[in-house]
C-alpha cells in the first residue's frame, strides 16, 4: 500500500514537472498579488509593516485556491480517477497522497518565496521564522480543505467560481490564526500559541479531510 501511495505521489510530481508552467503560474500569481499591495496602498514602510502579515496570508490563500481545481481535474478527464477508485488502495489514502503531491508543487513554493516578498514589506528579520513556519503549517491545511471543494465541484460548469464560494468561508480560521501568529510575534507576545493551533488544525484536517474528499469524489463520479 505504501508502494502504491509512493507511486501516486511520484506520478503527480512527474506530471507537474513535465508541465512546469502550471506550477510557475501559481507562484507568479502569489508574487504579483503581493507586489500589487504597495502600489495600491502607498509605499509608507510603517503602513506596509502592519499590513504585511494579512497581505501575505491572503495572497497565499488566493494562490493556493487558484490551483485547487487541478487536483483531480486531469485524472477525472482521462479516466485515471475511476481506476484509482476501483483499485485496492483505500481512496482516502490515494486522495491524501494526491493532496501531498499537490501541496509540494503549489504550496511549498509559496512558503519558500514568502521571505523574499516579506523583504518588500520591510518586515523585521525576527518575524521571518514565524512567517515561514505559519505558512508551512497553514498551506497544507488549505490544500486539504480545498481538496474537498475540488472533489465536490468536479466536472461542474463554472466550477472555478463555485469552488471559491465553497472553500473560502472554510479557510477563515486558518487565515485568522496564521496571520495572527505573525501579529502576535510582532507585538512581542510570541506566536507560539497560534502556531500550535495551526499544527492542531493541520493534524485534524490531515486525519479527516482526505476521507471526506474521497466520499465527495464517489458522489461526483458515480
Amino acid at each position, binding site marked *: 500500500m505504501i508502494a502504491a501511495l509512493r507511486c501516486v505521489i511520484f506520478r503527480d510530481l512527474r506530471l507537474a514537472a513535465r508541465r512546469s508552467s502550471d506550477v510557475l503560474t501559481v507562484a507568479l500569481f502569489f508574487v504579483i498579488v503581493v507586489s500589487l499591495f504597495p502600489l495600491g496602498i502607498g509605499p509608507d514602510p510603517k503602513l506596509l509593516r502592519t499590513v504585511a502579515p494579512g497581505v501575505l496570508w491572503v495572497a497565499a490563500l488566493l494562490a493556493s485556491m487558484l490551483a485547487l481545481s487541478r487536483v483531480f481535474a486531469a485524472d477525472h478527464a482521462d479516466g485515471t480517477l475511476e481506476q484509482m477508485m476501483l483499485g485496492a488502495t483505500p481512496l482516502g489514502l490515494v486522495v491524501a497522497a494526491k493532496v501531498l503531491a499537490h501541496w509540494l508543487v503549489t504550496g511549498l513554493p509559496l512558503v519558500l518565496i514568502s521571505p523574499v516578498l516579506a523583504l518588500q514589506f520591510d518586515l523585521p528579520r525576527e518575524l521571518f521564522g514565524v512567517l515561514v513556519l505559519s505558512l508551512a503549517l497553514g498551506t497544507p491545511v488549505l490544500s486539504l480543505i480545498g481538496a474537498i471543494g475540488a472533489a*465536490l*465541484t468536479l466536472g461542474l460548469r463554472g466550477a472555478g467560481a463555485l469552488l471559491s*464560494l*465553497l472553500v*473560502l468561508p472554510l479557510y477563515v*480560521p486558518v487565515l*485568522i*490564526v496564521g496571520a*495572527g501568529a505573525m501579529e502576535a510575534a510582532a507585538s512581542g507576545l510570541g506566536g507560539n500559541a497560534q502556531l500550535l493551533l495551526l499544527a492542531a488544525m493541520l493534524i485534524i484536517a490531515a486525519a479527516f479531510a482526505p476521507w471526506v474528499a474521497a466520499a465527495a469524489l464517489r458522489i*461526483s463520479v458515480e
Partner: protein
Amino acid sequence: MSINWFKYSSPQTFFPVAGRLALVFGALALLACAAGLYLGFFVAPTDAQQGESYRIIFIHVPAAWMSMFLYFVMAFWAGLGLAFNTRLSGMMASAIAPTGALFTFIALWTGSLWGRPAWGTWWVWDARLTSELVLLFLYFGFMALQAAIDDPRRADKAGAVLALVGVVDLPIIYFSVQWWNTLHQGASVSLTKAPTMAATMLAGMLVMIFGFWFYSIAAVMLRARCIMLERERGSEWAGQHARGAA
C-alpha cells in the same frame, strides 16, 4: 408493536402531511408574530439607556437564533440523507437553506441598524458579526453548489457533504474569530444587553422566537412540497395532485 420510522420518509405519504403542517404552523406563526410585535412595540417599556432603538431586538435576536439553529437542522437532515439514503432528507435540507439564509441576512441587517445608534457604526469586526457573515457565505455556498448540479441525487449528496463540513467548521470559525478579537481589540464590544430585562421585554422576545420558529416550519414545508412535486413529477401521485389542483 413496532413503529415504522420510515413511514413519512417517502414523498408520497409526506406530501399531504407537509401541507397540513404548513397551514397549522403558518397560522400559529401569524398569531405569535402579531402578539410578539404588539408586546414588543406597545407593551414593553422604553429602555433607559438606549431609548426606543433597542426594540429591534424583538426581530434581531430571534432571527440570529434561527439562523444558527436552522443550519444545524439542515446539516442534520443532510447527514440523515447520507446515512439512510432517503430521498426526502435531501429535499428537506435544500428546503431549509433559503429560510436559513434569509434569517441570517435579517440578523445582519437589523444588527447593523441597531449598531448605528448604539455603537455609532454600521459594522464592526466583532466576533459574532464576523461569524454570522461567514454563516451567510456557507448558506450561499450550499445553495450555489446545489444549483450548479443538474442531477438532484448528486446535488443532495454533494450538498450534504458540504453542510456537514460546514457544521464541523462553524464552531472553529466562531472560536477563531473570538480569539482574534480578544487578542487585538482593546475595547471589545459586548452584545449583552442591560443585565436586568423587563419581564415584558423577555416575554415579547420569547413569543417572537416562537413566531419565527413556526414561520420557519411553515416556509420549509411549503418549499419542500414544491421540491417534492418538481422532483416526483413523473410519479402517479404527483400527477393526481396536479390534476386535482387544476
